[in-house]
């Protein structure tokens, strides 16, 4: 494999994440042959209905990373206003600054080459704690979160329990 800019940088990030991992986050490439597909585990933030859950996700990096952001998809069922029913995560840090037709995101929150996997995962963790219902990916979940918080939290807790096999 040609040691491209992207793979070198990904290897760097992998090293940093293994030697100095942030709390509640584990991430790394699925195999050493392909540094462009990662698996990440995010633990549910404390004091939220997601607490206690472990949420696996896959990150797929483009060839021109870090100029373009990776895509992230939860591989488990997760009921959240900013996660599409297929698991894809909709969060501003994963959006390149170029396309923002709705203009609902601040430029400073969006992807830039100085962002990293670590920052993405931390952002996703805080997204779990504080959903952004202005641009919901899962409209039903967003409405439920806004109008029937109890029910929303119950569904989330059920999901966590199911995910843990309880």
């Amino acid at each position, binding site marked *: 494999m*040609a040691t*491209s800019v992207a793979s*070198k940088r990904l290897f760097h*990030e992998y090293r940093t994440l293994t030697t100095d991992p942030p709390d509640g986050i584990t991430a790394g490439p*699925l195999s*050493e042959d392909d540094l462009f597909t990662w698996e990440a585990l995010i633990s549910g933030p404390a004091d939220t209905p997601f607490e206690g859950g472990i949420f696996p996700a896959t990150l797929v990096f483009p060839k021109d990373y870090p*100029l373009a952001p990776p895509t992230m998809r939860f591989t488990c069922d997760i009921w959240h206003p900013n996660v599409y029913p297929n698991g894809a995560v909709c969060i501003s840090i994963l959006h390149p*600054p170029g396309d923002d037709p709705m203009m609902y995101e601040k*430029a400073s929150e969006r992807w830039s080459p100085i962002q990293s996997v670590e920052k993405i995962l931390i952002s996703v963790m805080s997204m779990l704690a504080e959903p952004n219902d202005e641009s919901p990916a899962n409209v039903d979940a967003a409405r439920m979160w806004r109008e029937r918080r109890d029910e929303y939290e119950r569904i989330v807790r059920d999901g966590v329990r199911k995910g843990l096999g309880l």
Partner: protein
Amino acid sequence: MDKNFEITDSTDWLDTPLSSFSVLETALRCQVCKDFFDTPMITSCSHTFCSLCIRRCLASDGKCPACRASDDASKLRRNWTVQEVVDGFSGARPQALELARKESEEKEDQGKGRRKLKRKIVDTDLEEHTSPRRSQRTTRSQASRTEVTPAHAEAISIEDSDATAEESEDEQPEPDDGLVPCPMCSKRMKEESVFVHLDRCEEEQKQDKKRAAQVRLSETRSAHTLPQHNSTAPQRLPQLNYSILKDIALRKKLQELGIPAWGPKQLLARRHTEWINLWNSNCDSSRPRKKSELLRELDQWERSQGGHTRDSAIPSVMRKDFDGKSWAQDNSDQFQSLIAAARAKRNQKKEGQESKDTNGDTEMLETRTGPPNAANTETATNSDDSKIAHDADEAAVVSRVIPDVQALSSIRNKVQAANDGVLVQETPEDASTRILSLNGNSDQSQQMTSVPSLHPGSSESLGMSPVKKIPMFAIPEEPVKDIETEQAAQ
């Protein structure tokens, strides 16, 4: 991976006593490539990145990656100071890290060693207790002195040199050489010559300064402007507006630059951008590389991001983690039909070669393809009447194809549907009739493949395809030829 490049990282410091160096090292690394700055450039918003990194970023979206202020590659300026700091630090890093690691190892050893000492060597233990005011450092070095491994000896000597350095810095003792320093320039001389010196000292100093300034000036000139004075020094390439350039013009430009000029316009533009980034960052560098090296780098880009990216072209089948079993299951009906078609073809080929075959030979073939199952015998009897028209050889062919009844029937379904323009319903009643009709077809379906051979090189459009006009499953009058293999042979 590690063989090709060893990746150093700021986190290397974390488990050493010098963990605060991690912050320093992070500051000396480019935030885009996470490596040490290579030819650092400062943007107009005062952020520093590697030349190549910031050029790539600006080429892609024209904004500073750190603060998203709009910027242009032409406004980038070199940041020599950072370059020097990085060079200095990365030069000192391996030794420093080794020392720091040794220190932490020693600490661990110390912890273990002390416990041992408490049990074995009571003297030193006592000594430690009796001198609680001593700094940890001295006790440590003393304790390590009791052990005489070479590694420790080395560590001690370094600590000693450390201590003397500190001393000399703190006190700066006057050398005992019987001379006194000049109060103005602190040049050392004999006491009696100081007054004579003082008269000229000011003037001398001025001259010295001038000389030094001249030297410095010429030094900086030689260091920073020499590459540009050089007649063969590379000139920075201007950016192009690809939207107003025609394909041919752009291709010509690439040829002039001596870089590959194949591919669609979009790829040409991307390649040109990458080349400009490589070339211009090389111009920034204080250690410019040869064009051949840059070309190699461009080739690497071509393979990882450019036109030679095989990843998109590689079907998932080629990947190492490919799940063969599920793939085989998902596509089993396609595989079956392909196998059936291949078998039918093979048989036809045989037929063509030995058009008047003996029955014994075909029987042998039959046994080779396996004994016909229940469905086979059923179809064999059912298709009796339709067989009448054919000779015994062809009947044998039918049964040879039968083992893939399912696959064949799915093909037949599709063919029928296409012919009738109606979807075939899969009701149980239909099933039997289907089998009947299909059995009638079964020998024909394998001849279907031979239909094209009746019209070799026919150029009719699909709309008026002869396949539709001529009865699709007609038996060829002339012996079947396999044009594909014939063509291959030619």
